[in-house]
């Protein structure tokens, strides 16, 4: 029973999606059933956030309670989750008059203030630091060790020059045809064909996995191999 029911649900849900795709708008019953499944899927997705909050709280709180090494960071994590999340979820009506705009996610709310002044600068700082590490890594690791590595190095350097105005001006001084050459033969030639191969391969893999789930061959989502 514990295995059969999930398998039947997965089969019916998958079948509804496939039928709705091929039947188009012509069969309203199939369309309505698939629409219902999609709404349910979105609702289930929402619950995964709740699961995430419970999980992050449990894992970090356990370390705080046990005063494990670095427990202060865990405490900050737990506090941050609730300080950021609760004001966004509290209904405005729960707050005293004059403070209702602090609830929710609109401009002027606590959530928005934290997002604009803490979350965004911190995320952007982390991302910007990548530029420093990439520069250091490029200096040390991007070497002409083989023919393939040399080709990659030359192509990457050309594309890097082509993607900035100063670089493009430099390429134009060599020959005005060079920027067009990069766009036509590197980006829309070699790159495009390789990307297509990767996309088709990934799509075939996804289709195979979907079929395995619909037919009940793939059961890892039930915790079984």
């Amino acid at each position: 029973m514990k295995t059969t029911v999930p398998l039947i649900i997965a089969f019916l849900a998958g079948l509804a999606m496939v039928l709705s795709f091929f039947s188009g708008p012509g069969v309203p019953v199939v369309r309505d059933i698939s629409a219902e499944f999609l709404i349910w899927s979105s609702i289930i997705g929402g619950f995964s956030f709740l699961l995430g909050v419970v999980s992050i709280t449990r894992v970090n709180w356990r370390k705080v309670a046990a005063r494990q090494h670095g427990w202060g960071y865990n405490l900050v994590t737990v506090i941050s989750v609730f300080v950021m999340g609760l004001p966004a979820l509290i209904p405005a009506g729960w707050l005293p008059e004059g403070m209702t705009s602090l609830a929710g996610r609109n401009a002027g709310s606590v959530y928005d203030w934290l997002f604009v002044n803490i979350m965004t600068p911190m995320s952007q700082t982390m991302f910007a630091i990548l530029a420093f590490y990439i520069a250091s890594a490029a200096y040390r690791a991007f070497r002409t060790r083989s023919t393939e590595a040399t080709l990659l190095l030359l192509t990457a350097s050309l594309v890097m020059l082509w993607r900035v105005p100063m670089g493009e001006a430099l390429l134009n001084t060599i020959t005005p045809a060079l920027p067009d050459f990069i766009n036509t033969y590197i980006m829309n030639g070699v790159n495009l064909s390789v990307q297509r191969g990767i996309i088709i391969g990934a799509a075939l893999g996804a289709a195979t996995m979907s079929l395995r789930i619909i037919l009940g061959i793939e059961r890892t989502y039930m915790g079984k191999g």
Partner: protein
Amino acid sequence: MNLWQQLDKLDRRWVFLLVWIAAVIPLIVPATFKISISPEGKSLFEAVDRLPDSSTVILTFDIWPNALAETEPMERAALHHLFRKNMYVITVANIPLGGPSVAERVTRELAAQYGKTYGVDYVNLGYKPGYVSVLRGMGTSIEGIFPTDNSGTPLSELPLMQRVKNYEQVDFIFVVADNATVDYWVSIVNAQFRKPVGAGVTAVMAPKQFAYVGSGQLVGLLGGMKGAAEYEKLVGKSGLATTGMGMQSLVHFLLIALIVVGNVGYIVTRQVARTRERKVKA
């Protein structure tokens, strides 16, 4: 230890310092550059420009806050174009942290500049989890997936959403994304609902999207800050991306210079080692 060996073992903090200098100089001495327009950027602009005035466009904010330097200028330039053509704009986010808040801030700011009214000319649907279900579900009923907008107002109370029920009433999808959702806008909304899709993505994502432009599944493409600067130029509204071109140019030049120096050092050091080996053998 000779010069090349010393360079080979250069402390990484010197590299960090050089990158910092390259990033700061354009802030102190701003310079303007001639921005060329790529065929993909031009094609996206023209696709939007060809839409009749008062068309309905979905503009996505599938973005995290860390890549805002690349994506926010695209959103701003796109909104300038859309509002200038009096289009009805529906914004939606498939990313929980970032998209809805940025959409709220940027859209309201630009809507005020063009005298647009919320609910009538533009709507922010906000975020719902599960982008595959969301994208598929919106094809049947937007209200089914988003019963309320980002502020909690029921869609039935918003004049724009009383008219727009699903993709049938939408004329164009302008995707701005820094993650894989653009693939789903292509494979679900373009492939299954036949809606034209154009995209603005981060520089690291752009190479993959060339495959969709080549197949006609994307009508055009903006790649990274350069793509954003191209759209800013096309709509005639210079912004952060155009300013950022100086910084990006210098850092790219520095990276190439570092790669060249690193390789010269590598080749010389290898040559010296080989010569020494030969001498030892002899």
